[in-house]
């Protein structure tokens, strides 16, 4: 009976209940899923047959990796769970990079993979892969469902696990025969799993200790990560910063959690952070870390990171606390609730001296570049983009120098405005992520600021944007190099640019061939007009900016250095 994947196949022997493939669709609807991404294959045909009639919008990428990044960015842009489907074997393995990307940045995804028939598992059947084995380290949780009676509850639990606590991707592997068999679906109940408990409420004694430390601090800094965005706690963060009178710096993933146009914003810290953020951290007597995890790109040489400071660490994941830097006052729980309680408990303090010091650093070391150059400076393109979009666009990036420039030169004032692969640093994330974000935000301007090499990895998804008529915009900062790699080779390998330049296609022509609009810009004076055209365009549009090829990202903290030991500040001073 399981020979055929036709939807009716299991019906004669098991006449009661709902088929597994229909249960999946019913559960998706029960979970409120409106859009999903994915790709077909033999062992997911029963599911796709049911999706044919389902009230769920379906987006087919050109590659499962693209589909997974789309689901990921859909989740990042909307705050909902992203859903992706793939077939067994190669379909499932193509998801791995996307799952790992979501895992590192704590993004909620539920991935469904088809699996070969239960009785063939372990036999090296056609398109068989040990999907749960392969994806275990890149998912928050995964499970193979071998009994159709467990399918519905497993899906409910998957959505709960993906979206609660510290979010993350969850994968459910479903053999084709389980999709065909029938079961009676129990009504939804409150989910209880013996091994899954989340502490959302912070310990009140810890919170009052934290408040006391803030009140006593002379030079505090709020160090904010993506956790604040995931928790939806930007407003609460703003209230705490203003009431307690504390400056705020964010990680790459934290950008947008705090309005960068405000005076107390120190912008981003870390390897390519601002000098004023890094100096403030190094001089601070109290670090208030919220939803951040002291990653090495942030801390530089860990021993010398904020060495004068006491550390308060608020995080929903107990395992993040004291992993890299020992917390003096750990508070486990949801950032939003804890920020509310902290704000109630803190008192306003005059910190004129501290803010004056920060003001000095800010005026002495602004992030800048050579505005007089005749070449197209990437920073100029982004500043001009910022001006023309009035700072309102949702920005998505690839990985490399352009990603850092997008972090430094566009300014973010709302959460979920900046979408980037921070933890894994996945080149090729940009375009599919822009598509996922655009689907979540149909009325907003979504722009992929991408690098030529990153874009090359997934540019096939331009066809997807065309097929679904999505007005995504690609602002390609084309230096003809794997620029970030070239920068490291310049600085640390004596300018030996081993294998770091590619022969690129003419991207504007490629865009046109795929049905999008393509514009090539080689002169500085053409930048504003090209951007204007791009922004006015309702079709997918790519602008290929031939930028200054050897521009570097400054400032920079070299590997192994403490974060106040920045290179490139002299360059800023000479231009100030």
């Amino acid at each position, binding site marked *: 009976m399981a020979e055929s994947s036709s939807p009716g196949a299991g019906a004669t022997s098991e006449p009661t209940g709902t088929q597994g493939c229909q249960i999946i669709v019913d559960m998706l609807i029960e979970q409120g899923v409106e859009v999903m991404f994915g790709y077909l294959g033999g062992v997911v045909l029963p599911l796709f047959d049911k999706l044919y009639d389902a009230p769920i919008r379906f987006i087919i990428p050109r590659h499962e990796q693209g589909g997974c990044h789309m689901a990921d960015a859909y989740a990042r842009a909307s705050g909902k769970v992203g859903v992706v489907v793939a077939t067994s074997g190669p379909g499932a393995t193509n998801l791995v990079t996307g799952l790992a990307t979501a895992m590192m940045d704590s993004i909620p995804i539920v991935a469904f993979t088809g699996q070969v028939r239960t009785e063939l598992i372990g036999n090296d059947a056609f398109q068989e892969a040990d999907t*749960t*084995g392969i994806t*275990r*380290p890149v998912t*928050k*949780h995964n*499970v*193979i469902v071998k009994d159709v009676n467990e399918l519905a509850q497993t899906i409910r639990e998957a959505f709960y*696990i993906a979206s609660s606590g510290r979010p993350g991707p969850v994968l459910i592997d479903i053999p084709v025969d389980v999709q065909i068999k029938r079961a009676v679906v129990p009504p939804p109940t409150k989910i209880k*799993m*013996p*091994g*899954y*408990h989340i502490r959302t409420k912070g310990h009140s004694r810890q919170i009052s200790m934290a408040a006391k430390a803030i009140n006593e601090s002379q030079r505090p800094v709020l160090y904010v990560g993506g956790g604040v965005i995931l928790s939806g706690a930007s407003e609460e963060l703003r209230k705490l910063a203003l009431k307690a009178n504390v400056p705020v710096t964010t990680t790459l993933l934290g950008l947008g959690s705090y309005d960068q146009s405000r005076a107390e914003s120190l912008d981003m810290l870390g390897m390519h952070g601002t000098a004023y953020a890094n100096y403030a951290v190094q001089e601070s007597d109290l670090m208030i870390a919220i939803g951040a995890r002291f990653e090495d790109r942030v801390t530089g040489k860990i021993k010398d990171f904020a060495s004068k400071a006491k550390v308060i660490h608020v995080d929903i*994941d*107990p*395992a993040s606390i*004291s*992993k890299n830097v*020992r917390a003096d006052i750990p508070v486990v729980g949801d950032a939003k609730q804890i920020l509310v309680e902290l704000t109630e408990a803190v008192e306003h303090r005059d910190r004129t001296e501290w803010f004056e010091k920060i003001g000095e650093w800010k005026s002495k070391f602004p992030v800048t570049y050579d505005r007089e150059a005749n070449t197209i400076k990437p920073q100029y393109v982004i500043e001009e983009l910022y001006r023309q979009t009035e700072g309102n666009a949702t920005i998505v990036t690839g990985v490399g120098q352009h990603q850092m420039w997008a972090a430094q030169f566009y300014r973010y004032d709302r959460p979920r405005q900046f979408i980037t692969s921070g933890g894994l640093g996945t080149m090729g994330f940009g375009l599919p992520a822009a598509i996922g974000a655009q689907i979540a935000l149909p009325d907003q301007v979504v722009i992929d600021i991408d690098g030529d090499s990153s874009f090359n990895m997934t540019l096939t998804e331009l066809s997807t944007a065309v097929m679904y008529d999505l007005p995504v915009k690609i602002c390609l900062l084309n230096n003809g190099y794997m620029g970030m790699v070239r920068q490291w080779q310049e600085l640390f390998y004596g300018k030996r640019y081993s294998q770091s330049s590619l022969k690129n296609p003419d991207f504007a022509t490629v865009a046109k061939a795929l049905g999008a609009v393509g514009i090539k810009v080689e002169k500085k004076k053409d930048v504003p007009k090209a951007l204007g055209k791009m922004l006015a365009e309702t079709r997918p549009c790519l602008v290929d900016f031939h930028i200054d090829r050897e521009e570097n990202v400054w400032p920079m903290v070299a590997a192994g250095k403490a974060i106040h030991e920045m290179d490139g500040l002299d360059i800023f001073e000479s231009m100030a």
Partner: protein
Amino acid sequence: MKHIISALVQNKPGVLAHTAGMFAARAFNIDSLAVGRTDDPSLSRMTIVVIGDDRVVEQVRKQLAKIVSVVKVQDFVGQDVVARDLMLISIAAPPDKRPEILALIEMFNAKVVDTTPKSVMVEVCGPESKIEAFMDSCRPYGIKSVVRTGTVAMARQGGSQQNSNS
């Protein structure tokens, strides 16, 4: 320092792989790992001996607790526990050495479970130090083969539970 960590896990396929994979991925140094069913058929108990400083062991405990199918994790450090290891050891035992070996076995409260003309198989149970001491004492005669279960442990009744964490 050595820590004995006890984890109650759901008796489901993949749990052992998940746990072992986490240890490998995070480069934790595992001395031994013993798994067995409990009185509740839906739960198994893993006893893990980890070597590391307090920070590493704290991470092990937290990362274990984070695995969805892990129900409860306890670090027995600082607690009054009974810890036992079981070893089967086969020792070369020619007739002229046999009396000596049997005396040794008796001294350690061990048990002969099989004999051949050339060797004896012995079962030893006890704290790890005893097992190690017995093995050392057997070395001069020639150890043919060793099998050990790895440590299992239980806190004594009334022992402090302050390190428990679910």
